[in-house]
């Protein structure tokens, strides 16, 4: 975990250790500090609903319930943050593994300017090769598999690093230390 954390923080990712009991308040705390107005959650997810139940009235909870064509403008113009689960992570490179699902689609981790990720500490692999062989990815690849390592960035202008290119400007990882929930989702 420590290695993962170090690698993540090196690329400007905010990392918090959380438990079952406090993760929601950590998220809401960050939302308040940063003045977030809305958070996008998936459809019918346990963690999404847990957040929704405790959200204050000034924080709008938006659910990704319809196909993107129905509400694309709203997503692009004005959702401040999104919350998704991670399938796992790679310690070596500080990467989160995301397999978007019908419940938590692809654009959730891409369009909103801030991305909250819930990661189960038990699902951390040593490296990419380990992850794909242990979980036997070759057997059935999803429509889209992603490795995410920090907020989006570019060094195209005079090799000077700038964050917040096209993807999220900020990434917040909540490493969940529970027990009895072992293994990748």
């Amino acid at each position, binding site marked *: 975990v420590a290695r993962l954390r170090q690698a993540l923080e090196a690329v400007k990712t905010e990392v918090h250790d959380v438990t079952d009991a406090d993760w929601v308040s950590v998220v809401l705390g960050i939302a308040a500090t940063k003045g977030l107005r809305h958070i996008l959650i998936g459809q019918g997810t346990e963690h999404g609903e847990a957040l929704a139940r405790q959200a204050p009235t000034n924080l709008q909870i938006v659910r990704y319930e319809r196909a993107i064509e129905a509400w694309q403008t709203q997503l692009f113009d004005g959702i401040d943050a999104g919350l998704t689960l991670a399938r796992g992570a790679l310690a070596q490179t*500080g990467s989160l593994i995301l397999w978007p699902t*019908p419940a938590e*689609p692809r654009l959730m981790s*891409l369009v909103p300017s801030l991305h909250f990720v819930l990661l189960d500490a038990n699902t951390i692999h040593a490296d990419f090769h380990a992850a794909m062989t242990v979980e036997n990815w*070759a057997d059935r690849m999803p429509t*889209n598999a*992603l490795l995410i390592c920090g907020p989006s960035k570019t060094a195209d202008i*005079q090799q000077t690093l700038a964050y917040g*290119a*096209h993807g999220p400007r900020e990434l917040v990882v909540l490493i969940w230390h529970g027990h009895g929930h072992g293994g990748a989702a």
Partner: protein
Amino acid sequence: MSRVVPINPTQDFKERTRFVLNDPAQRQNFRGAMDFLQAKRRAQFPDPEELQSLRELGSQIRRYSLANLPRLLEQLEASLTANGIQVHWAQTPDEANAIALQIAQRVQAKRIIKGKSMVSEEIGFNHAMQAAGIEAFESDMGEYIVQLAGEAPSHIIMPAIHKTKQDIARLFEQEIPGVAYTEDVDALIQIGRRVLRHKFAEADIGLSGVNVAVAETGTLCLVENEGNGRMCTTVPRVHIAITGIEKVVEKLEHVPPLLSLLTRSATGQSVTTYVNMISRPRQPDEKDGPQEVHLILLDNGRTQAYADLELRETLKCIRCGACMNHCPVYARIGGHAYGTTYPGPIGAIISPHLLGLESTYPLAFASTLCGACAEVCPVKIPITDLLVRLRNEAQARPDTDDASLRGSGVARTVTASTVWGVWSQVYSKSGLYKLASWFMSRGRALSPSDQGAWTRSRTPLVPAARRLRDLIKDHADKK
């Protein structure tokens, strides 16, 4: 100060190099950028043993893929098709553009948003779309900047490497409505982000390249830092991916070592912000993603390289750019001077296959054969050997074994052949050699002071008064 240089064969290569060599600002830009990239790469490979074994692994994976290319391409097509991705084959750039246009016209597309794709540059995609009344926007920040300036990219990884932030600040102020001049890089990036966000949302088709295609699972792998690739491959309702036929590997497990080599060699990062692996179009229960995904596989001369076992090594390339970052020639003349889509050492060895030796042979000669490129190549392409091979091809006598490529013998001249013929006679017969060297040293006063290109910036070459054998004799006599 940048000048628009159209991509065309290297007839006036010499002229362009001379032009850029006389531009100290441009040279300083490039020197700084190359030093930066070299340092970043070095920092990523602190353990020489790990580096060498990873390079060997990368080389073997690529070699295996190329040795099995026909079978793997068939497997790739079958896997992709089973996944719902439509596969198209294009022999030439025109065919590739025609396929893309056919798709675009069927879905009545008016706007295409592009992720970074060198192959799309190779085929002149933007131009072909424009001719058909379809707008093609670049979304990679560097490519966007270069498109705004009406130029071509000068480096395969950092397209705007030849521009300073002042250049870009001025460009944005002039070309983007409502934007004030600012040299703050963060602010400039936010401007680009804002402008391009709308383009993603409004585009009908997203175009991308492919870094690695996996045959066993039918997966297209893309790496990026900015997020624009994910945007292009997720938001528009049609995604077209285009790449060369050499980019395929057999197994998913071949991907991690290649990506590790690629990102560390290219930008000095252990991993890019995003690794995007696409295997299917949007499924019935999914809420986003493209409805259609297409892959166009381009040949454009790659099979010529494949057919020759030595030249096949050229196709191992994973497009990292390390070779050009370490090339002393590239550092001085920059990417535009080459006049080809792919500049630097890789450009010199691949362009003859894509464009023919006739127009690209000067690139193989524009090298000191220092070998820096071959040393840093993550997949161990023997670039210097290939440069020498191409030089031989260019000067080969037609209809001999040496002349096996399209355009072989193009650089062969009577004068050069005669000179080298004489040289080879003199240097292989010791009697002739003794005589010739005696005349050279005793007749040194007759050496011309104008020795063409040499004396443009150097003092003339003059043979020594005493030959080595004279000195040895003198020394022996003294004893």
